[in-house]
């Protein structure tokens, strides 16, 4: 049941409206940051206000008129959309709070541009989440690409500019692939709407057409999802300030990519088309390879943020793998992993940023004994590490459980092995950091103390959320119910 509502539009627009206010108060940092926090809170509350309806099976829709003949620019808040929107908007509040401490700590320049770009990014992210069709998705997806660029090159060093070029080369190429895919899809299917179970289900098209379309779409969303070999922009983009890496390169931007994969697999092609035309297996193989290779590469990184970047690449492919397994359980797990990976990875990035801003360390090898100086920070890091390795009681366990369950029930044991090996590798590249921090004797951080509460509070909150949602998956916003709803919609016709 759909009903017309303007709330989705407000939820998208509220941070955009804050942009002129942020720009206008560039000489009054406190006021500027008030706008940011205010927009973040308003955005989250607007998204939250839609939740009861969505849980009730209703779908709020905002129609904004035809954008090209035959296709509307429209927002449609289904369960998958609201999961992503909840994650992005709630974590934006924490990231904004954290940013204030961080930019003060490292004395970043051009903070106004920073906060303004951030606000545009969040509008685009929620727009991606609420897109009702492929065109609307592309519009917001590309706005996100452009709005992230000023954040990637924020430091304006030659390295940052190179990273920016790399980022644009990858993402703009992906954008044109999506444009071609969408134009062609419209010719084939006569519509561009996201339909649970697949728009292409029942559409008469040749196998070659379907396969090339799939390649264009997965190529398009695969760049932001950092699917290998399209991932190289992400480690390079780690040159951005840490809050950017935390929210955009662990939550908003990259999750737009995997969210796109879920949309493409579940709502454009659909499970039965995916299996009928042998699209699922190649995608699963690529995702599985990405998981293993990225985890191995993470082991080799000494720079903490780069290590986390490769870890992110691996975990994004958990979600791609979940989609490619074509099983309701795995799909549920994939949706959950969007949320669980978000809370865990943002914790790790927050910690990396706190270490950089407060203790001025970039590399893993320099962290001996830091746990004694920053016990809260490093405890949060330990909690999130346990979760990323897939161990209870942290929420990473449950998403991985469902993906594994899906692999087992559909007889794809290889995927199960990949998940287990990846869990071990996760432990191998994260636990030594915890070990160094707490157990290696060193006096280099004596008398340093914790970072500012602006940074410590958010990372403790996200670590706490990870545990809370791990113990009580259906707590707070009933993420588990939503994930099941989504799978049921996608697999309704098949299961």
């Amino acid at each position, binding site marked *: 049941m759909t009903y017309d509502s303007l709330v989705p539009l407000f939820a998208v627009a509220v941070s955009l409206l804050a942009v002129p206010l942020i720009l206008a108060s560039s000489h009054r940092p406190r006021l500027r940051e008030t706008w940011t926090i205010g927009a973040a809170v308003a955005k989250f509350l607007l998204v939250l206000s839609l939740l009861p309806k969505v849980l009730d099976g209703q779908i709020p829709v905002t129609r904004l008129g035809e954008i090209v003949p035959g296709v509307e620019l429209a927002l449609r808040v289904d369960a998958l959309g609201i999961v992503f929107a909840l994650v992005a908007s709630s974590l934006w509040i924490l990231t904004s709070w954290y940013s204030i401490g961080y930019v003060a700590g490292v004395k970043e320049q051009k903070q106004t541009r920073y906060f303004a770009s951030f606000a545009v990014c969040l509008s685009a992210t929620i727009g991606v989440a609420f897109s009702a069709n492929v065109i609307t998705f592309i519009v917001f997806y590309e706005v996100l690409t452009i709005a992230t660029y000023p954040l990637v090159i924020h430091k304006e060093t030659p390295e940052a*500019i190179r990273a920016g070029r790399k980022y644009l080369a990858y993402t*703009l190429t992906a954008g044109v692939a999506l444009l071609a895919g969408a*134009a062609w899809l419209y010719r084939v299917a006569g519509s561009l709407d996201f339909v649970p179970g697949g728009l292409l289900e029942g559409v008469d098209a040749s196998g070659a057409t379907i396969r090339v379309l799939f390649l264009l779409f997965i190529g398009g969303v695969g760049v932001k999802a950092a699917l290998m070999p399209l991932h190289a922009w992400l480690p390079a983009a780690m040159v951005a300030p840490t809050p950017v890496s935390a929210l955009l390169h662990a939550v908003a931007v990259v999750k737009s990519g995997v969210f796109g994969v879920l949309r493409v697999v579940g709502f454009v092609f659909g499970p039965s088309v995916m299996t009928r035309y042998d699209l699922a297996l190649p995608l699963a193989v690529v995702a599985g390879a990405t998981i293993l290779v990225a985890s191995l590469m993470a082991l080799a990184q000494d720079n903490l943020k780069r290590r986390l970047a490769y870890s992110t690449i691996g975990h994004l492919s958990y979600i791609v793998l979940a989609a490619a397994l074509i099983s309701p359980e795995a799909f549920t797990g994939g949706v959950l992993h969007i949320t669980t990976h978000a809370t865990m990875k943002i914790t790790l990035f927050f910690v990396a940023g706190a270490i950089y801003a407060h203790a001025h360390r970039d590399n893993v090898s320099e962290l001996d004994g830091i746990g004694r100086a920053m016990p809260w920070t490093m405890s949060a890091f330990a909690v999130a590490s346990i979760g990323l390795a897939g161990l209870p009681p942290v929420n990473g366990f449950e998403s991985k459980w469902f993906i594994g369950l899906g692999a087992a029930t559909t007889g794809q044991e290889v995927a199960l092995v990949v998940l287990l090996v990846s869990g071990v590798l996760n432990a191998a590249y994260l636990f030594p950091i915890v070990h160094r921090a707490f157990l290696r004797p060193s006096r280099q951080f004596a008398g340093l103390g914790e970072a500012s509460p602006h940074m410590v509070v958010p990372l403790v909150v996200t670590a706490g959320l990870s545990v809370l949602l791990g113990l009580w998956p259906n707590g707070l916003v009933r993420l588990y119910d939503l994930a099941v709803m989504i799978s049921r919609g996608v697999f309704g016709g098949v299961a």
Partner: protein
Amino acid sequence: MTEHLPVLIPLVLLTAALASPLFGLIRHSWTYRITVAAVALDAGLTMWGLAEVIADGPMSYRLGGWVPPIGIEFVLDPLSAFFATVIAVVALVVLVGARALVAEELPEKEVPFFVAVLLMLTGFQGIVITGDLFNLFVFMEIGALAAYALVAVGERPSPVAAFRYLLIGATGASLYLLGLWFVYSLTGSLNMADVAAILPTVWDNPAMVIGLSLIVVGLGVKMAMFPMHGWLPDAYTQAPSAASALIAPIGTKVGAYALIRILFFVFGVRLVRDRLAVTDVVLWLSAVGIIYGSVMAIAQREMKRMLAYSSVAQVGYIGLGIGLANPVGLIGAVLHVVNHAFMKAALFVVAGNMRVKLGHTDIGRIDAAVQRAMPWTMAAFTVGALSMIGVPPTAGFFSKWYLASGAIDRGLWIMVLVILVSSLLNAVYFFRVLERAYLRSGDREEGTEAASGRNEARPVMLVPALLLAAGIVALGVFNAVLVNGVIDLIRPAGL
């Protein structure tokens, strides 16, 4: 009054062109005022005409009361009304700031400059409105002679560029005239509708093929279709900034108009597409021109020259849409006419403002000081650049959408590839400028004016740039309105 609209559209401008120098004798500024008033009136008339055509269908005007095909006929139909409106509106917006540019670059030449502008616009509007093939030649020469003069008064090497423009342009016009002679000798008529009716009876005559080829080549020169673009880069680069801002957005477009008119409405789709495949020649030349122009633009060190080569590529987009010779392709071509008119006008106005304020437009000397000095000008440039790259929701994205859709309809994958690759090439040369303007920290030489803070163009020069930038976004967001309401009415028989 309504029935006189077709003739009034060029006549208002011609009258003003004759009257304004007389008033200019009394006071120089009156020439400019009359110019703006006449173009504003003309814009009003064209919009009125467009509304009438949409409501009541095409109207025709018999000049001097002579009955066609003996007399000259002026025709306002969806195609001509649309082009006339684009020409008048874009010229009006650019003219707002033109006087300030002229005062800077050509002091003392204000009166002849604006008289030439009026004559050029008379020629352009005449080309668009006339229903007579020979009359089209006459207006083409009026417009071209005025344009040669406007180019010739620029920088020191500009007379050479203008002379080259004159030689090539005159050759093109001669070829057109020669082709017309063949057509006239076969059909005994010069009235477009009349010729269109008679032509099918002489299809098998080789003279008709020769005539058609000569006309297409002649018009190809006028619209700077590859490889007949040789006059364009020097002319646009060395013309005074006000002249390039006026000629670049609309000058080549009237050539494109004449090509659409003569191919699809005079010779007819069945002949030019199905029998002789003239449109395929246009298609492939345009595709090569797109890539060639984009690559050459990357190689340029000076911004106006870069924009000029970019024009060669963008004219290729229009040619590509014409060459596709299917409904969506033609929509893409016509939509790109208005989109590109706005984009190029915005970019050339920005280039003009930079010439005035910085004294140069060398890309190598652009750095962040430029952006600090002229933030609004650079904002307009950024919007124009994003649209050229094709980032939604700007206009350029939708040009590409229709052109790619048209190519997919024909199954011409190579053309889809050309469109997409050129997007990325555009990104290369525009981000090269953007990156410098926003990120390259200036050498901060003491005493240089640019390094010392705010030095924004005067409001009268800034307003056109910002209006055009806003127009680019509006054209993108509301493209469906334009396509459904106007462009869709342009339906040659048999397409």
